[in-house]
């Protein structure tokens, strides 16, 4: 039965958890937590089959399912899902992070445990659905449904200003989405279909493309977030519980960049070429601005949040370089960011649970007290900076190489500025590390801090393994993206009317 509907099974599997959780008594907190961990682990193991059965020798959409969903005179939408090399790893990242998050919430979430788990599972359905949907209407439904659980996660389990942050997050994202909705309607009006693969082969006029691209780009820019649309992110991150932050940074932001790759770029290639310089400049501003603002943060979590803005700038830069290296680096960097920043948020959550403060000034010298913790933190910090042997290096290097080889005018200027972000990244991360872990003798209060428990080590180890795996053997991932990236770039090139982008990166 599930052979033909394997992807649907993966997508809606968490709903089963929701149904089961509804029958749990609310007082059974321990049982609920264990159930969440076990269930998400099973989900992850099942989803590995996607990786094993993924055919990367040739580009095609895989695990495709198509049935008609809404049939009427004025709206025809299909239930059309499938994955390719672009979405594969983000799907896997989602299922990979979930058990880790649940392990971390074992001690982090104390109130209303049951509904928290329900919301997390619902959120996962929304995320997975958005990633696999190949029908614009279906995509939009998942894309918006995702907001509701996230809004509750921030608003109910968050910190002091959680309500403000939750509403800001919701309204910001909704504003972009609604613009995109108008764009989707217009596309349906002109092409008569929501099917993404059909829309790829349709040529919009340049004028249409420009407006549509703006509509889509703003929606995704808010999600990513690209400077200047990033203001909701620090608030949301600061207020969200650790689990919320991890899923937000790890996966939710990637949906924005994924949206560019899957929808905005292939559908509106000419507009994309027109706007690319501006987007690239915004991305670079984001890289540098995010790094500079991160530098002066007093709160560790806010620092990590701003580093997200900086890192996502790299991803955007890589995608918009329109070269094979850049795009692959961009996709890989999405995964890296999910792993490294997710790990950083988890680590911040660890000390926050012990001390209930995230101010850097409250710490200092705790490497003495928490040596294991300090080691983990160091590894993740270095990965975030992009030290060779870690995943960050591979991603950033590919992106910068791709940007340098791109056929944009003054590509080397872009590269130079973007590369300065790498240095700034090292500055803020290491400086923060120094102030938290060294500098002074630990205060009396901090001497009482306990080191990592077995449970905490258990959920950090997989992340560290991933960091080194991608860092040492990125080919495993590149191989699986290769065909998809080539396909998209070729399609892009074939659809170009205004300018021709040379795929190999030679100048025109």
């Amino acid at each position: 039965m599930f052979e033909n509907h394997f992807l649907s099974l993966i997508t809606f599997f968490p709903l089963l958890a929701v149904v089961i959780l509804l029958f749990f008594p609310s007082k059974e907190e321990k049982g609920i937590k264990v159930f969440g961990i076990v269930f998400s682990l099973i989900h992850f193991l099942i989803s590995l089959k996607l990786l094993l059965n993924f055919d990367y020798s040739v580009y095609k959409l895989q695990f495709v399912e198509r049935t008609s969903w809404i049939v009427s005179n004025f709206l025809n939408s299909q239930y059309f899902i499938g994955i390719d090399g672009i979405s594969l790893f983000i799907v896997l990242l989602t299922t990979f992070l979930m058990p880790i998050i649940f392990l971390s919430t074992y001690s982090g979430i104390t109130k209303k445990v049951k509904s928290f788990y329900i919301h997390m599972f619902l959120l996962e359905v929304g995320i997975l659905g958005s990633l696999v949907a190949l029908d614009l209407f279906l995509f939009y439904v998942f894309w918006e449904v995702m907001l509701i659980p996230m809004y509750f996660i921030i608003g109910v389990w968050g910190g002091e200003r959680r309500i403000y942050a939750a509403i800001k997050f919701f309204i910001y994202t909704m504003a972009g989405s609604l613009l995109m909705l108008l764009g989707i309607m217009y596309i349906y009006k002109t092409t008569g279909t929501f099917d993404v693969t059909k829309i790829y082969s349709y040529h919009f006029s340049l004028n249409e493309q420009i407006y549509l691209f703006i509509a889509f780009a703003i929606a995704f820019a808010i999600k990513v977030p690209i400077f200047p649309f990033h203001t909701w992110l620090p608030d949301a991150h600061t207020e969200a519980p650790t689990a919320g932050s991890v899923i937000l940074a790890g996966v939710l932001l990637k949906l924005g960049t994924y949206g560019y790759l899957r929808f905005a770029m292939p559908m509106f290639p000419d507009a994309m070429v027109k706007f690319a310089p501006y987007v690239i400049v915004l991305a670079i501003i984001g890289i540098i601005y995010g790094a500079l603002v991160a530098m002066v943060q007093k709160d560790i979590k806010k620092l990590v949040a701003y580093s997200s803005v900086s890192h996502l700038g790299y991803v955007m830069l890589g995608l918009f370089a329109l070269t094979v290296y850049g795009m692959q680096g961009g996709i890989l960097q999405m995964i890296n960011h999910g792993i490294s920043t997710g790990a950083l948020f988890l680590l911040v959550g660890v000390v926050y649970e012990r001390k209930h403060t995230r101010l850097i000034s409250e710490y200092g010298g705790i490497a003495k007290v928490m040596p294991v913790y300090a080691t983990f933190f160091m590894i993740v910090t270095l990965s975030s900076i992009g030290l060779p042997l870690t995943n960050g290096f591979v991603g950033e290097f590919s992106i910068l190489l791709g940007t340098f080889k791109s056929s944009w005018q003054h590509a080397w200027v872009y590269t130079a500025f973007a590369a300065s972000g790498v240095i700034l990244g090292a500055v803020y991360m290491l400086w923060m590390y120094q102030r938290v872990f060294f500098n002074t003798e630990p205060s009396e209060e901090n001497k009482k801090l306990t080191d990592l428990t077995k449970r905490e080590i258990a959920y950090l180890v997989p992340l560290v393994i991933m960091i080194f795996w991608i860092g040492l053997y990125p080919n495993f991932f590149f191989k699986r993206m290769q065909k998809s990236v080539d396909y998209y770039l070729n399609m892009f090139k074939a659809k170009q009317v205004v300018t021709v982008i040379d795929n190999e990166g030679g100048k025109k």
Partner: protein
Amino acid sequence: MNITINYYMLMPFLILTGGIIVLSFMGVLNEKIKHYSGVIASLFLFADLYYFVKLLPQLTYRSLDYMNGMVFYNAFNIYLSILVLVCGIASFVLAEGFFNKEEFKHPEFYAIALATICGLLVMVNTNNLINIFVGLELTSIPLYATVAYFRYKEPSVEGALKYFILGSIASGFFLFGIAVIYGATGSVVLKDIMIVKKGDELFKLGLLFLMVGIGFKASAAPFHMWTPDAYEGAPTPVTAFMSIAPKAVAIVILVKILYIAFPDMFILWEKAIFVIAILTVLIGNLGALVQNSVKRMLAYSSIAHAGYLLMAIVAFSIEGISAILFYLAGYLLINIGAFGSLSLLKIGDNDYVEYNHLRGLGYKYPLFGVLLSVFMFSLAGIPATIGFVGKFYIFKSLIVKEQYILALIGILGSLISVYYYLKVVVFMYMKENPEERNFEFSFLTLSLLVVCAVGVIYFGLFPQAINKLAILASKVLI
């Protein structure tokens, strides 16, 4: 002259008239039977519903005309009648759960409500301006009475008075419009008006007066002033009813008058509706933004929803009409749900609800919290609910007709509305220090709300069933 009366054609109105008589006399019968007045009143509505549902399959391509359009059945009218009746039954259920059994004089209330519903049916199932006016009055006058049902409460009386005075003026406008149009064409039948060549200013004047009169009833800006007060003063089940049925019928009558009688003056009325729709959406949403009372917020939000419906009128296409009809069906489910949830929050007969009263209710009454959240998200137009699909249809019909400005304003309105709808959810789930208020929820109302919520989500995911009906109904109009 020998007129034979076709009783079959007049059946729905006769049934309801019978119902009014029966319920009026039930008050003087013994005390025991009083308790069943709601059930008995609903039976009459069900009988009507049965009549229309039986009639619908026969009318896919033809219509039934009686006395030159005095009574006129076609798929479009029947669709609306069914909506009105379902809305009536649902509000009766809410009323049963809402009113205090001891103090409340049941039968009269239902008799008055039946009169209103009968008026709405008269208004819908006709092609004749005079009959529309008769229906309008038969709807409005009992409604004034039901709004003022808590006659010892100041807000109730105040709201009813505003409603009564403004409503009467609106009726006057409407009647004057009919008179002018009759003067210009010598006919009050919608189809005949279209055939007559119109060139003179009288026509435009008549149309203007008709639009003003209907605008009042549909609570379109700038004729919306009575809405918040009347909605707040009325008992909540009455508010639920009047926010759906009369509004829906008013909008549809506007559609009928414009599309059937004045299609050739599209250029003229398009501009007017364009401005009115934009004003309505903005005023409704901005007004709702600053309210403290949840009921007033919902009243303003219902103004905004009228605005979205008016927008679809400008589309002037089958798609636009079917979008309106679909939206109305969805709106029925959601609004019964939203006002029904409010009607549960009463202590004694004090049904004043502020946002603050909602603190922590989501945890205290989990089911209630989930239901109200579903309705709020649906009103805000979040996908996977019927509210989203309805809005999608409306905006899409505008995009197809290249009315981008309207679509953008509508989107902007939706965005504003997210804030105040979410505020309800925020207070229920995210604010500390819950109010110490204990409610006794009526089981009847709760089960109706569950049905509504399931409908909202089910039709939000699989809207075909309603959509097919709506398209079938809208094809006969143009």
